[in-house]
């Protein structure tokens, strides 16, 4: 039972950075923009949050700094892709490489010492309930914040007029423009939000999940976040479940390595990536669903007719 509780709790924590990054990218893609630079923005967020902590800033400020670093990085992409109508694939890839470089440069002075991780909350009374307590009520605040983000984003996309406008901008910017919506401004806001969320995800990695600095510490999580959005057929709930699946596989393979299963650890490390992609590929086969949720003008540049 203890093992199960440990795996469950580990899963939720391992999924948290992915939830932030993938939900952010979901909003970006729903507006019809493809920002491939998630990995770079996460690394920027991780580096700046870590920097803020060793500079002595309080934890919430450090995490916010990580988010803002991600947003700043995404602004770079926004200017290229939305104002200058650069190819979005190229601009996104450039951002991924740029973020990885900048974060590595900053990290040269971080040293290898761990920092004090983000404190966990011990919800009074509730956290003492056997089994349920450690599974639900003993996480750090960012875990709960990620789930709150999921709820708010789902509500925003499907229950508010602003969310509806965002989705229609992603389907047909021409029609949205004709009705009179400021397509470019809406897309900028979506891109900035995506950057903020990716930055928060990165910050979580460096100050909560593994509170020490390692170059390229995201280890491809930005790319997994991108894949999650696509294979989750652009639906928030599936993004959340996909992130948990990935988190669960990560913890399982760690347990497997700890138990000394006779499989090379490199292969075990690849397992979460493979399993997540495989499951999502299988559930994304429904074309009817795709037609409903796919932002039809994804990655197509839009210039409003004068």
């Amino acid at each position, binding site marked *: 039972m203890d093992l199960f509780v440990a795996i469950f709790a580990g899963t939720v924590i391992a999924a948290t950075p992915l939830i932030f990054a993938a939900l952010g990218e979901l909003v970006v893609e729903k507006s019809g923009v493809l920002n491939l630079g998630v990995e770079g923005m996460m690394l920027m967020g991780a580096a700046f949050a870590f920097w803020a902590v060793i500079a002595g800033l309080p934890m919430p400020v450090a995490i916010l700094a990580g988010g803002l670093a991600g947003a700043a990085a995404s602004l770079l992409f926004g200017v290229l892709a939305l104002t200058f109508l650069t190819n979005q694939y190229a601009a996104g890839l450039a951002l991924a490489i740029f973020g990885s470089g900048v974060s590595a440069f900053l990290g040269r002075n971080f040293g290898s010492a761990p920092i004090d991780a983000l404190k966990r909350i011990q919800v009074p009374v509730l956290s003492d309930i056997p089994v349920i307590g450690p599974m639900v009520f003993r996480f750090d605040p960012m875990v709960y914040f990620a789930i709150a983000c999921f709820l708010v984003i789902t509500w925003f996309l499907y229950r508010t007029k602003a969310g509806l406008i965002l*989705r229609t901008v992603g*389907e*047909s910017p021409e*029609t*949205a423009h004709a009705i*009179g919506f400021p397509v470019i401004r809406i897309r900028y806001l979506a891109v900035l939000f995506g950057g903020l969320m990716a930055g928060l995800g990165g910050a979580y990695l460096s100050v909560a999940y593994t509170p020490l600095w390692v170059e390229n510490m995201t280890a491809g999580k930005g790319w997994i976040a991108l894949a999650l959005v696509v294979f989750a057929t652009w639906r928030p709930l599936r993004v959340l479940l996909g992130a948990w699946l990935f988190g669960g596989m990560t913890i399982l393979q760690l347990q497997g390595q700890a138990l000394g299963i006779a499989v090379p650890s490199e292969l075990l490390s690849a397992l979460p990536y493979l399993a997540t992609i495989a499951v999502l590929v299988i559930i994304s086969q429904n074309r009817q669903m795709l*037609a409903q949720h796919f932002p039809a003008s994804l990655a197509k540049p839009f210039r409003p007719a004068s």
Partner: protein
Amino acid sequence: MIPRLELRNICKSYPGVVANDDISLSIMPGEIHAVLGENGAGKSTLMKIIYGAAQADSGEIYCDGRLIAAHDPASSRALGIEMVYQHFALFESVTVVENIALSLPGRFDLDALAAQITDLSQRYGMPIDPRRRVHDLSVGERQRVEIVRCLLRSPKLLILDEPTSVLTPQAVVKLFETLRQLAAEGCSIVYISHKLDEVQELCDSATVLRNGRVTGTAKPKQTTSLELARMMVGSQLPEMHVSPAMPGETPVLEVRGLTAAPRDRYGVALEGVSFAVHGGEIVGLAGISGNGQAELVALLSGERTHADPDAIRIGGKPSAHLGAGQRRRLGMAFVPEERLGRGAVPPHALWQNAVLTGHRTGIVRNGLVDRGKAAAFAKGVIDRFKVKANGPQASAQSLSGGNLQKFIVGREIALAPKLFLVSQPTWGVDVGAAAFIRQTLVDLSRAGAAVLVVSEELDELFEICDRLLVICQGKVSPPLIRRQTNREEVGLLMTNRASGTKGKDLALQD
């Protein structure tokens, strides 16, 4: 009485063309006024000027006796002027009610709006389900959404741009009922069309345009179609020459007991479809849209294949399992109903579009495209079929609907097919081009080819076909000889099964 809308001496030029030249007209409250003209006559420009989407170079617009000075779509709507475009401005992935909510000011209350939509759409006899997603709707239903969107704002003047070019005959009847009801309530309607019969049936008055000028005004109900056509086209319409058919002995296309599942959730299953088309004759397939035509055409063209090779035979050869390319190799040619996107690649030049199906005529050698030959092939089609285009280098999307259709039909005929399959040959095509295309089909069949025409326009089928088939709920009727049948019989076959159990569904769909 003060006219609802009055135009005085409207002029509008674009670089190289005078779209509107000194146009004046006036429309009374509750009047249904037709603006009649061929494609390119300046109708759409005029409507944009009325709606404020384009500005006139000179001239004045009065609404209820007041001069409209500065003008844009928002101020038009404030005045009670609404427009239903030919190409709908709807988002496919969201629901009807969400689409409508986006263009309405005020509170975002989908439930209240949905109730209002249901209410209004029922009052005007065009039921729509506000919770359905637009991509699941037929074109007719989409148009209803657009009209309901306008009606929700209680317009004083409603502009409809070619509203029936995408509708089935039944949907047209319903639309006309709605429009008459609206007019009776005092709303003025501007009805843009090039279809004479519709204008005569619906409209109180008409202004006819040709080359941007008014060439006449008329009371359509008291004017013969010939007179209206002369004002529109400026010369006598070409007469059709349909000589008697000389069908060959063995069928070129044979369909035997073809049964197939629907294409998607809103498709129709085909049940035991059997018919034959011989060389030298034109067979028409009539039916209300959404009765299995899409499935049948996909199976005949080879876009969809069938497990039983014998279900479809082309030139006696079992072909149902063959793909589109292999069927073309057997001498079949195909013109799909979607010109842009299926029949042609919109941004590509005509010579490139010619290569798409003309590559078997020696244009491609050793995997390389001979550009000179491709251009010559396209040029040949342009000349022979009188396509108005800026040469083989013109992009497909730069052509008008009628000219692109002539090019696509011409491209396929240039392949000298033994079997010619064409779907909706004259949808959204102007009168002159439509007559030309129909004559081309007749000539092709009289030269020995087997021609199958799928169309929702009964007039067209009665004009050119030798035999008629009727498709209803996925079943195809036995063939009717055109000279021995009439519209009533065909109309009955088109709807008789529909009046039974599935009648209600059908009413909702069209």
